[in-house]
């Protein structure tokens, strides 16, 4: 059992940050939220419907970034991005892909094999997929892992823009992400009391 008795709600425009030490269950929480993991007890709801990875409706609204980047080493950056977006059911023109890559500092690397990229560059590629997918719900596991300060600030700006547009994001992170306007909600996995309630908990 990784954690118990956690209860919270997120509204449009919320960017929830999940902090905690290693093994406290941050990644498991994200996997529960996207339906990859089933809770032993309790439920997860999105738009008042129970969440399930099998549900095409829900799958069409979530963008998940896990520990691994979801990119295949033997394919090029552009190929990976296009395939990943096709998988999410969203066709993107090559121009849009190149532009997104440029914004994340990967311009000029479109035809490089992902295998040759650094960890941070792969992370940025995965973020490009999330940004281009246009989904309302972002579930990101350590998105700023291996990113330098400039890239982190750029990501924070995009996160704030997403929240301002009415999207919801749940982000696990080691370090605090600046809210850039709106104070982010924080969940500390190490500090769950018996009731597991977030202070303050608001109903969706």
């Amino acid at each position, binding site marked *: 059992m990784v954690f118990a008795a956690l209860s919270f709600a997120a509204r449009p425009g919320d960017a929830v940050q999940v902090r905690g030490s290693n093994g406290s269950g941050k990644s498991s929480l994200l*996997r529960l939220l*996207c*339906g*990859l*993991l*089933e809770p032993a007890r309790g439920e997860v709801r999105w738009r008042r419907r129970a969440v399930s*990875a*099998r549900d*095409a*409706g829900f*799958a*069409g609204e*979530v963008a*998940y970034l*896990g*520990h*691994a*980047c*979801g*990119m*295949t*080493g*033997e*394919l090029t950056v552009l*190929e990976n991005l*296009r*395939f*990943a977006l*096709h*998988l*999410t*059911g969203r066709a993107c023109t090559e121009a849009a892909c190149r532009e997104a890559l440029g914004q994340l500092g990967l311009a000029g690397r479109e035809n490089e094999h992902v295998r040759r990229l650094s960890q941070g560059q792969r992370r940025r590629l995965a973020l490009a997929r999330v940004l281009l997918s246009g989904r309302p719900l972002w579930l990101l596991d350590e998105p700023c892992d291996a990113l330098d300060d400039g890239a982190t600030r750029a990501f924070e700006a995009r996160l704030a823009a997403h929240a301002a547009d009415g999207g919801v994001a749940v982000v696990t992170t080691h370090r605090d992400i600046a809210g850039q306007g709106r104070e982010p909600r924080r969940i500390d996995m190490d500090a769950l009391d018996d009731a597991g309630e977030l202070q303050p908990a608001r109903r969706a």
Partner: protein
Amino acid sequence: MPANSSLLVGRELRLAARRPMDALSGLVFFVLVGSLFPLAVGPDAPLLVAIGPGVVWVAALLAVAISLHRLFEPDLDDGVLEQWLLSPHSLTGLVALRIAAHWLVCGLPLVAVGPVLALQYGLSPPAVAVLLAALLLGTPTLSLLGALGAALTLGLRGHVLVALIVLPLCVPVLVFGSSAVSAGQQGLPVGPQLSLLGACLSLAAFLCPWATGAALRLAVE
């Protein structure tokens, strides 16, 4: 969906081209096993003709079995499998496409090289033709069953468990396939065996992608 299918199959083919060892290892093993038997039993021509069909089929089975662990493992490690599960596309469809691509890359070469092996065993041209047809019908079934075994044992160490689960399930294909070729060699009708192979393929094609998808969900949890 058609646009997606070609894109996804294209991805598989591209990957196969860039991971040549994955694609070739099964083929190499096939030829290796086929070459070992004459060394073991002696070059007696009638004996080789008698065991030829069986040897080719066993070699094909083993070649498929050793290529299985690369079917889903790279995607599990890269995190691509999670994206599959979270895709609005049907998982069964994605799995079916992956198995089809795997067969194109690992199974079809066996179909091409099988007749060569059969000729080495001294099988007659009609028997070789039957072998071609039988391999075309049988190797996809082996890929389908193998994918189920690979998904069930995904993430577990060791390769023997996959073989233990998959090979007993493949016995009918082995029996019908090699009996078809033996019958062809003796000039007997091969219709029943080939129809049975086709029936096995239909059953596997109907059930395996769905069951493999369910097993993949379990593996990613």
